[in-house]
């Protein structure tokens, strides 16, 4: 993890471990997690369901006690020194949870009073998330998107330096997702650090500056999004479009040139093409004109799937695998 050496860290965990006991035995939630979140920007905390993201966040917030390992927020060890730093941290863990029979305003004013925030701050944050018109309505009458906005308003009561959002777009419609995404990006642009956990990788790819990918409670990759995609991918594939009547001949020409070709709806995907010009040239020489030709870029999802494909059940990585680290 040399990428953040020497830089200030918003969050750092070392060897964090948490197991849960149940009647069915002991299950591992987080297994020796080493996480580093730099100050500033949006940091995506990615992993499939059950990979330990929420458990990690709960440990950072003192809601769950780790079995082993250490965690710090802005250099303060948590949960021991959490009271000293909690005023700088706003968090939404999983779905928003407020008193359903209370209005948004009453819910927030209770929280504001608990931390000694001025009453005017409540109206300000409600206005900031666009809920002024519904501030006196009961929380239980809110749509999921409104609940999520209210949760964001709650985190803003403290004017925090670090915001932790756990699966913030779960259940939201596309407009709601975009709204939350813009909010997170906007907060990061104000100089705050935003840690957003999600299992929807494409969504995080749009806003995250850096990411950490976990699987089965372990870190499997971390670094800048662009570097991670670049490091993990050189697909050597291109997608091309030709006239519908040329599809058959184009397939034949490319296969004759030793390339692997497959149909994707009205397009062709050519694998093993190290240079797109090679594809264009081969088709042009046979009088087939290409309407569209684009090299296929790897996305975060494909990187993630590639990194976690070797994870075996039981909370252990398969032999020989190492954590991928990318300079941030």
């Amino acid at each position, binding site marked *: 993890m040399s990428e953040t050496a020497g830089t200030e860290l918003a969050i750092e965990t070392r060897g964090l471990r948490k197991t849960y006991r149940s009647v069915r035995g002991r299950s591992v939630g987080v297994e020796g997690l080493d996480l580093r979140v730099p100050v500033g920007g949006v940091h995506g905390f990615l992993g499939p369901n059950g990979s330990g993201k929420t458990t990690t966040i*709960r440990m950072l*917030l*003192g*809601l*769950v*006690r780790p079995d082993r390992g250490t965690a710090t927020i802005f250099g303060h060890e948590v*949960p021991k020194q*959490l*009271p000293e730093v*909690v005023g700088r*941290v*706003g*968090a939404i*863990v999983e*779905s*928003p*949870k*407020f*008193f*359903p*029979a*209370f209005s948004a305003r*009453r*819910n927030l004013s*209770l*929280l504001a*009073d*608990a*931390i*000694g925030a001025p009453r005017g701050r409540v109206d300000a944050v409600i206005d900031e998330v666009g809920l002024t018109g519904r501030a006196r309505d009961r929380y239980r009458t809110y749509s999921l998107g409104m609940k999520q906005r209210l*949760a964001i308003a*709650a985190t803003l009561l*403290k004017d925090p330096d670090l915001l932790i959002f756990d699966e913030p777009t779960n259940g939201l419609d596309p407009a709601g997702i975009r709204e939350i995404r813009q909010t997170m990006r906007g907060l990061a642009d104000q100089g705050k650090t935003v840690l957003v956990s999600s299992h929807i990788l494409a969504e995080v790819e749009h806003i995250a500056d850096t990411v950490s990918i976990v699987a089965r409670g372990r870190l499997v990759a971390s670094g800048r999004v662009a570097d991670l995609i670049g490091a993990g991918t050189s697909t050597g594939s291109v997608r091309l479009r030709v006239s519908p009547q040329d599809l058959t001949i184009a397939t034949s020409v490319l296969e004759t040139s030793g390339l692997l070709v497959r149909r994707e709806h009205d397009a062709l995907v050519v694998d093993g093409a190290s240079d797109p010009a090679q594809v264009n040239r081969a088709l042009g020489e046979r009088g087939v004109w290409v309407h569209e030709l684009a090299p296929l870029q790897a996305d975060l999802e494909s990187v993630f799937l590639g990194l976690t494909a070797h994870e075996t059940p039981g909370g252990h990585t398969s032999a020989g695998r190492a954590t991928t680290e990318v300079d941030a």
Partner: protein
Amino acid sequence: MNRLLRVELRRLWARRLTWWALVGVLAVAVMTAFSAYGSARPPTEAQLAEAKQMYQQELAAWEESGDEQVAECKESEEADPDPAVDYGCDDMEPQLDWFLPPQPYFVPPAVEATDLDTYAEERGLDPDDVDAGAAAISASMWSDWGAGTQRIATSALAVVAIAFVLGVSFVTAETSSGALGLWLTFEPRRRRVFWSKAVAAGAGTVPLTVLGTVALIGTVYAVYAAFGTVGDLTSARWGEIAGFGGRLVVEATALAMIGAALGAIFRHAAAAIGVAAVLAWVGSLVTGAFDVAQAWNPVVNLGAWLNGGAIYNTQQCAPGESGIVDCVWVEKVVSQAQGGLYLLALTVVVLLVAAVVFRRRDVS
């Protein structure tokens, strides 16, 4: 801590259930007054006329055959092997009072507690089998069946139960809604968070129980006063009533805090209330099965604190001279002081256990 306590008190009184609880304690007062209405009323003209008619009939019969009845009575009395027995043969002439319906008062007539020997004799018990203090408890205004004060003492249990449920719900509502997790992200010091909730549950219910107690005593008094059947209500007895009200508020406050603590331990209102009910029931069963344990029955002790002491009956068995086990009923007393200490100890222990559980438990 003070800031958190203020917030929790605000939350308590912002809850709809708290206002329903207030309506509940007032409803208890009204229902108690309503039930007292029938007995507080003096006999109607029709009842008096009927009683007089029956009295006249009995008196006429007495004038015809009274001497014979007395002679038969004395004959039976003399034939009795017990020389000290009194058949009451000199008091056989019918009296009008015998035919009138009983007239309860708000406070029963002040009676001197009988001495232990007389008290035991009235119950057919050996004085050695009766605890000192039983006579005083039995003669107390809170034990006089049908009196307004006894009705108040019975209904006070409902006020205590409402305070307990309010305490349970105050904490479990936060757990079940998940709001506790958010709360802890604002104030992670669990110890402070727990104590602010427990103290708020207790302190926040004080206005409710004070109002309920005043309403309970006031409405029942008003009913008896309306019929002129208040009884021997001296300032000293008002003092006793005020003392009862104070103890009721203390007990309700403690039960609200115990409720909050059980809510923190069990997290679900139904579980916390169910466990408390089962423990009270099992406690009664266990203590009932083991005579020596009856003194620690929670229901008996909480009643003792409230009513100035409590009496329970138990059997004492011992081998007789012939070798056969001989059992006798005895009356034991739980003093008010023991009841108070029991309440205090119960509150402290449950709160401490809950504080440890709350501090260590993972919040999901």
